[in-house]
């Protein structure tokens, strides 16, 4: 049921929102994707990486492509790009089980083991709720709810019968709330993708400094593949926060933002 729903959604979104006929007609792309799949299956992971990167360089993306690319990097034991691509995939498809599973495995192989500061229960609920659907789905929901809200409002305004007017009013209030929530989720997802608030360390080991200055005190060392939250930027430095709450500065070249 869920997959059917997803399929329907993607047909709506892709088939008619983004002129997909351009993509569909591209045989070259098809050949590229096929050779990527067969390269991965045969174990030529470095070839698979090249093919998937080529798809991305064509200006196209999808959660599946990022996920497959992450897998190929993982098989080559390059954990930083693997985790980076899994996170990118998760950005587009936040509740995909396969992506979450592989990301967990990749994270268990990196050097840094960070005790995550536990979130409060409502933060967790909130997060898991808005990650139920990708941003585009929330956007579609917001339109549907808004349309329904307008219909309910119409019933309220035009109906002569008191019962209809009452139902119309309540439905309009509820639908307006739903519409604004889906709008907020879609907005949040949009800003998450454009703001690039996270990063993955790409250097084997980097020293986190207390201030954006080479001569400042060394705080701690991070290793390849660790996820950091980017809080601020200054010249060629970024202020980062790791999952256990520690904060410091790193040269911007040591990490890749997403």
């Amino acid at each position, binding site marked *: 049921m869920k997959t059917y729903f997803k399929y329907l959604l*993607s047909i709506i*979104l*892709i088939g008619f*929102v*983004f002129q997909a006929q351009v*993509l569909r007609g591209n045989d070259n*792309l098809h050949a590229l*994707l*096929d050779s990527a*799949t067969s390269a*991965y299956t045969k*174990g*030529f*992971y*470095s070839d698979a990486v090249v093919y998937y990167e080529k*798809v*991305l360089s064509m*200006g*196209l*993306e*999808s*959660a*599946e*492509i990022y*996920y*497959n690319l992450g*897998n*190929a990097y*993982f*098989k080559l034991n390059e954990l930083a790009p693997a985790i980076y691509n899994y996170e990118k995939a998760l950005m587009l498809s936040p509740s995909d089980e*396969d992506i979450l*599973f*592989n990301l967990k*495995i*990749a994270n268990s192989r990196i050097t840094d083991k960070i005790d995550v500061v536990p979130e409060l229960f409502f933060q967790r609920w909130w997060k898991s709720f808005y990650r139920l659907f990708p*941003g*585009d789905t*929330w*956007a*579609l929901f*917001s*339109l549907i709810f*808004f*349309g329904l809200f*307008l219909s309910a*409002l*119409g019933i309220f*305004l*035009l109906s002569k019968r008191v019962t209809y007017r009452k139902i119309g009013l309540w439905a309009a209030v509820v639908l307006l709330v739903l519409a604004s929530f889906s709008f907020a989720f*879609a*907005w949040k*997802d*949009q800003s998450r*993708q*454009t703001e690039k608030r996270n990063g993955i360390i790409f250097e084997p080991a980097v020293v986190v400094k207390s201030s954006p200055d*080479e*001569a400042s005190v060394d705080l701690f060392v991070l290793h390849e593949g660790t996820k950091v939250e980017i809080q601020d930027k200054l010249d060629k430095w970024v202020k980062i926060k790791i999952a256990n709450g520690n904060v410091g500065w790193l040269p911007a070249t040591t990490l890749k933002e997403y």
Partner: protein
Amino acid sequence: MKRIKFLVYTLIFIIPVISLKSQDIEFTASAPSTVSQGETFQITYRVNAKGDKFKGPDFKGFDVVSGPNVSQSSSFQFINGKMSQSNEQIYTYLIHASEAGTFDIKPASIVVDGKTYYSNALRITVEKSATSSTPKSSTKPRSTPATPTEPIQSAGDLSQDDIFVKAYVNKSNPYVGEQVIITYKLYTKVPLANIRINNLGTFPGFWSQDLIKSDQLQQSTEIINGQEYVTAEIKKSALFPLKSGTFKILPLEMEATATLIKQRKRFSTGDPFFDQFFNDAFFNTGYERINKKVYSNAVTINAKPLPTAGRPVDFGSAVGNFKFSAQIDRNQLKTNEALNLKVTISGSGNLDMVEAPNISFPTEFDTYDPKVNSNISASSSGISGTKTFEYLIIPRTPGKYIIKPFTFSYFNPSTGRYYTETSPEFTIEVLKGADQPGGITYSGVNQQDIKYIGTDIRYIKLPPYHLRPIGVTFFASKLYYGILIGLIVLFGLFTFGIKTMQKRRGDVGLMRLRKATSVATKRLKTAHAYLKNQQEAQFYNEISAALWGYISDKFNIPLAELSMENVENKLLKKNVNPQTIKAFIDTLNNCEFARFAPGNKSENMEQVYKEALSTISRIEQELK
């Protein structure tokens, strides 16, 4: 006044602090003022603060062997609760004086707290060494071998040409993991009593193994530029680059003690015999020992990465020339008996870094970590040997099993290609062992939990993929806002349309509906006025008009079409209580009767008025 005083005091206290601070920083250069040609010596720059951007001078006339090597020290002191901190940074150059003459070395600069400081300049005189000035040994007799017993030279300083150490590698451009042999060779023209290696050349970025031991020096003679040297390899190591890049191997530092004969003037008695006697090699104790520090040259190795093209999936880190074989000790055995699988890898290369091949055993086998045996010999030609992995396997359930062929891949640097060798496939027949009951037992079910053998990432997702242009989202796109605005416009048009249509179609009816009750009450009010004035005819007219008019307005029926039946049907349709309808009809009838029939009407007027009022209000309630 007070304020000025305060200011003055503050300034008095602050100024010395500032001046002290700037005076504190000292940046000095130190070096020996005189060195001999061919000598290697140190130049040291010291700064007593934390500085950066150190910029050394160009050492014109000298060769820089290594440097600047930075060392830092800092100390904190707490005295009577006051903290003081002292820093020191030392930049060291190892300099080789190759030319004779007097040279000026310009000051070095360093930045401390944003200010640039300069060191003192140095003047170094390089004296010509004795031997290099003498003409090449063509005048010397050829037949003087450099043996320790025979002194060649009388007392004096040793020159660069007398003792030196040369470092060389057999390959300066190896692959990662390829064996490189580095040799340090000592050349001497003077007899040496003792040598001591102070500072081994370190090999950062390499895995190394010594090939010869320092107590087994083999001597030989070599002629360089017509001069005969005694040579010995003092150190030889096999190096395996661990990663690609350019690596500088720092020079080896050695201290050699040369034994030279001293001319003993005071024993010169004038008597040739005694002179001969005392200056005899056997009797003479006048050897002079001279210590000399000798540095080898630095060697640069540029390790190139292994090619990625054609790299097998199972390639570990084996680089060299290897042979691979695998065998099992038997094909048939009983359950719970042991079986041995032996994997042998032999050849030359980085055997220490060769890992056990990845073998997938049937899951019904109990297997243990392999026993690793390595027989590696380090000879002067490099490292070679054999490494064996012995797997102990115990089958637990009878059956016929296959150990699938497994592979071993290595890179051969001499051909520049990867090779993959495959083991044979082993078929193993496992019979029921003695401790297993022969018959089939039915007692109890032998269920097992699922065994999780390994963890791996999940497989890639297969097409179709939902590709879309990067960064393009549905939300906040033109289309999204278009739909949003479209919905609002559509809604506005729709409601507006409906409203105007309603107005046009049922304007009068609508108005009448709203006004029905108010008109009726107005009429009843006038009727009440007539009641007070006892104007009977007008009163009944008014009540009748109020009742008929109310129905006419309420249901939008023209007055002309109204009749008693009409009214009854209409009210019944609207679910009005039959009793109420009856009361309404009765009141109407009463009115009509009173209007047109003679008799005493005044006594009924009060009652009719009340009935009319109550029925209208009842209908009004029920219609809601």
